[in-house]
């Protein structure tokens, strides 16, 4: 599903975010990216949805080298990739329903599709009955669920999550992880960057560890350290 071949990315001559990174992630895999701040986790995620382009190497997503992809094709690539963030990135002036519907609306889905898919995904993330609330009327965990619903409503092949439990208490974080696990079991590939040692150790999924832009460990059913 995702393949990196000798990928190097630097932001300046002194700051090299990623060095010669190579790995492959299969369909429906769940992968943790771990490592200290500045180790290149977020850069890896940004390379996977073409928010960044590498200096060297190739990034393959769903069988296509996305570095060579024309800019006009990038939106179509992103429709197959859901994104989840630590700060949720919800639109504060829109309700829960509208936030989720927004992701379908802006890619031209019909009202009928929106009316069908949004309630279904809100039910999946456990937010039925809260459709008309605004983000500020929700807890952090609920806001993250809205963010997950928005990322998953278009049934993407891949979910990229950047520290999704970073702002949540341990109990709420576990709830979010159970939800991501359920989504993963539907066949969606999940790649999650995290600092949360407890969650990585609890989930026992594949772990790719980075240190100053270099992959130092790639372990199936691994732990944080």
């Amino acid at each position, binding site marked *: 599903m995702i393949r990196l071949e000798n990928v190097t990315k630097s932001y300046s001559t002194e700051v090299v975010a990623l060095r010669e990174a190579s790995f492959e992630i299969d369909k429906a895999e769940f992968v943790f990216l771990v490592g200290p701040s500045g180790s290149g986790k977020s850069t890896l995620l940004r390379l996977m*949805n073409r928010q960044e382009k590498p200096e060297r190497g190739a990034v393959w997503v769903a069988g296509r080298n996305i570095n060579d992809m024309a*800019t*006009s094709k990038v*939106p*179509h*690539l*992103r*429709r197959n990739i859901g*994104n989840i963030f630590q700060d949720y*990135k919800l*639109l504060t002036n829109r309700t829960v329903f509208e936030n989720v519907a*927004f*992701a379908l*609306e*802006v*890619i*031209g*889905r*019909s*009202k009928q599709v929106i009316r069908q898919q949004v309630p279904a995904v809100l039910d999946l993330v456990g937010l039925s009955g809260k459709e008309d609330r605004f983000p500020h009327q929700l807890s952090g965990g609920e806001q993250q669920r809205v963010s997950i619903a*928005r990322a998953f409503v*278009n049934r993407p092949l891949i979910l990229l999550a950047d520290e999704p439990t970073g702002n949540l208490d341990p109990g709420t974080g576990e709830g979010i992880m159970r939800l991501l696990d359920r989504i993963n079991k539907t066949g969606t590939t999940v790649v999650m960057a995290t600092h949360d040692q407890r969650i990585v150790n609890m989930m026992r999924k594949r772990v790719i560890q980075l240190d100053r832009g270099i992959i130092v460990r790639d372990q199936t059913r691994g732990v944080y350290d």
Partner: protein
Amino acid sequence: MLSRISYVFREMWASLSRNLTLTVAAVVTAAVSLFLSGLTLLIQKGFDNQLAQWTGGVEMIVYVSNDATPENLQLIQQTLEGQPTLIEKVTYCDVQCSVDTAKRLFAGDPTTLEKLTTETIPSYFKIVPVNKDDQVMLAQVATSVRSLPKIQRVATPEKVIATLSTLKGVLGMWTVVMSVALLFASVLLIWNAIRTAMFARRREIEVMKLVGATNWFIRLPFMLEGLLQGLAGGLLGGGLLMVVNNSWTSTVREKFTSDSGLTGFVVTGSTPIWVMLAMVGLGGLVGAIGSATAASRFLDV
């Protein structure tokens, strides 16, 4: 498709109402600059009317009575063309051509215009001399022509014509410079309004890009917003121009006599309407340029 169109227009209205102050500022600036641009065109047209008979180096006009026979006209023409050392070019303007010119010259004086029918109006010969500065030669030609039959009068340009020509050049240049500067300011203001609108919605734009909205889909509401601002400015400026032109026309007609020299400065007929439509079009263009450049420049979040 329908949902996309409704989304684009909904977002455009939302953005317009959210940035009301900037929107009003952009529309008013566009209106003022387009009003001035339109005014420039009308002033130029007024000067053209006033100088209609004296363009192309014409230094003498020989008016011929309405009852002149073709033989009379032929004799006059032969006499004029028979002086190649003095006269470079002779152009005849028949009765219909004369009526058309009078319509432009006396647009602000319908009373005089009514009297100038095909039955009463004189036809005329326009004369371009070999040397326009040779006053002795011009007087010699005038004398030789006056003695011919059916000549009504021989007119030569007065100082006022030369003054008008100079004034037209100077006024024309400065009003064009001012209009261009103001149009540029309008483009910048619309550009800035769109940039502010995009900044206010940067979170939405970021989410839209991440969920796979195309750049065109993101840009379109902003581009339409700028286009609408420009069109509104054009309508407002064009409307104001019509009001001012109508007021000027009625003032000249009511308060000035036909010998005041101002009647030619009145522009009537379809010209003001075309100028107004051009202002609306220009407004749209200003809006489109301002918003398109801003939408392309600031789309990256």
